[in-house]
């Protein structure tokens, strides 16, 4: 449609507003991270008067940032890696077979993602204390315990997104492979997995990103040794004296990997979300 000047002004105004709104908290974080402490502590200033990169180095020693990163990395990677193989098989079943209970299974997968996490957290916490009483294995405060709780979202999410991808793959290749004598295991392993590798990577990254930012489970199930970035930085922010510039620098460092991963994979991620959502 032809664009009149009125529409062009409307677009300019709309995009300006959306950009300012989007950038506001991001700008506050980044600009505060490069100010010396004295300048962060007073009234906010939009333009940093003095610029320093020291907070990006000092943050690593003020709080055990490296340990937070390692904990977050291990737990998010483990939950994504555990979900993926299980999800590929289940998604293949959902995408390719009609079987009694398929509808129910799909419904469970879809609905468990919509259930509040706190609903799973309370009983899982109790089950963990019971496991400790019976077997002497302490899961509360441990990384494996946190991985189990992360599966509550990473597993259904992976099944859901992968089903959408796999349903979109042409089935002729699989049928041809079967005609050539490849069994079902061979079809999944040699045909489906290689074809879906980009999707599997994208879904894994998405599950990883959500684990990276998780707050609820980590707030209850980590201790000072196993604390993740989200809880570590929140603790950092609620201390009596806070090195705000270092906190902001740590926040920037904490978001770099996931933002880069997201932007690199955005097309895959969006297609996966969209195909999973398609009514």
């Amino acid at each position: 449609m032809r664009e009149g000047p009125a529409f062009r002004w409307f677009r300019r105004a709309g995009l300006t507003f959306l950009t300012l709104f989007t950038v506001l908290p991001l700008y506050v974080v980044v600009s505060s991270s490069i100010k010396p402490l004295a300048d962060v502590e007073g009234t906010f200033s939009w333009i940093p008067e003095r610029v320093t990169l020291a907070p990006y180095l000092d943050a690593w020693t003020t709080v055990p940032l490296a340990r937070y990163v390692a904990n977050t990395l291990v737990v998010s990677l483990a939950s994504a890696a555990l979900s993926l193989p299980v999800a590929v098989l289940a998604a293949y079943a959902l995408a390719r077979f009609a079987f009694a209970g398929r509808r129910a299974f799909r419904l469970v997968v879809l609905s468990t993602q919509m259930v509040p996490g706190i609903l799973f957290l309370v009983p899982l916490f109790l089950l963990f204390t019971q496991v400790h009483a019976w077997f002497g294995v302490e899961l509360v405060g441990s990384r494996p315990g946190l991985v189990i709780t992360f599966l509550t979202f990473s597993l259904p999410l992976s099944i859901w997104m992968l089903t959408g991808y796999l349903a979109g793959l042409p089935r002729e290749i699989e049928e041809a492979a079967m005609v050539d004598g490849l069994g079902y295991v061979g079809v999944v392993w040699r045909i489906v997995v290689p074809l879906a590798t980009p999707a599997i990577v994208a879904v894994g990254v998405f599950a990883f990103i959500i684990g990276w930012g998780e707050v609820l489970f980590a707030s209850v199930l980590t201790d000072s040794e196993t604390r993740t970035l989200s809880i570590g930085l929140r603790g950092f922010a609620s201390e009596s004296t806070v090195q705000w510039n270092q906190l902001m620098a740590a926040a920037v460092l904490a978001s770099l990997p996931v933002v880069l991963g997201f932007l690199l994979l955005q097309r895959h991620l969006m297609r996966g979300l969209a195909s999973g959502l398609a009514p």
Partner: protein
Amino acid sequence: MNVGSTRRGGSVRAGLSMGRESTRANRRRGRLLPYALILPAVLLETVVHLGPILAGIWTSLTRLTQLNIRDWTGAPVVWWDNYRSGLDPSGPIGGVLWETFLRTVAFTVLVVAASWALGMMAAYLVNTEFRGRAAFRALFLVPFAMPTFVTVIGWSFVFDRDDGALNHLLVDQTGVLDERPFWLIGGNAFWAMVVVAAWRLWPFAFLMLLAALRNVPGELYEAGVLDGASRWQQFRRITLPVIRPVNAVVILIMGLWSFNEFTVPYVLFGPQPPESATLLASLIYEHSFVNFNMGLGSAMNVLVLLFLMGVSVWYVRTFLPRTHDA
């Protein structure tokens, strides 16, 4: 999706090709195969979803506090006591629960409406031709990609009363206000939380709606132009009806996410947000992990679950078109 034909076609064809095995055995294998494929997922789901839900229903019927938390299977059964005190609008616990429920509904409606409006506007604008579209598209994704705990820390710097960016702008620089209001304490905390939650959520609406707009056939608009429809009329009469199914799903998902919101108030205010910013998830968290009254917390969880199930079923029946493949 023609799933119905898959099993028959797949197994017959495989049966023909694999002469060693009898067709019947193979057909049975083909029938059992999907169950074998979903078995690991079902087992894991049982551990992380079904088991906890059943355990939660059980504990909601018991008096479970920090005194007997180490041996919760032996907690005394009190049947409906937790539900009764939770639902009693004149009791201290029930009164707060009902208030929090209404607040959470209001929060959900406001956040979903704002996120949808912003996302729709952004998707509509980015879907037109102009230079720099790709840059805006990438920028608008960032709030969705950033970890919530990071961006909310940024927002807390915006809303800080004494040194925050917002009061600096409103009071020091422009003089719109004479006094520095508290944004994170008292009634304003609710609105601050709505703004932050909408800021986080609208890119999701943007992405989904942008994908939907791309699928609207161009001929429809051409016909609209010929009929002399204005841009607004085209949006109302062509765009909205065509993207309606996507809209319905996006609004449902955003609604469920917002209703379950925990992270934004937790990072913005700490484990115990001010009263005006306490949502259901925070309230249940407080009962369960601050007061350690887990029986009551579990009962509230079950009530929330029942409510969400009821609303979702009603919503899907009312707004989602029935498809042959559910």
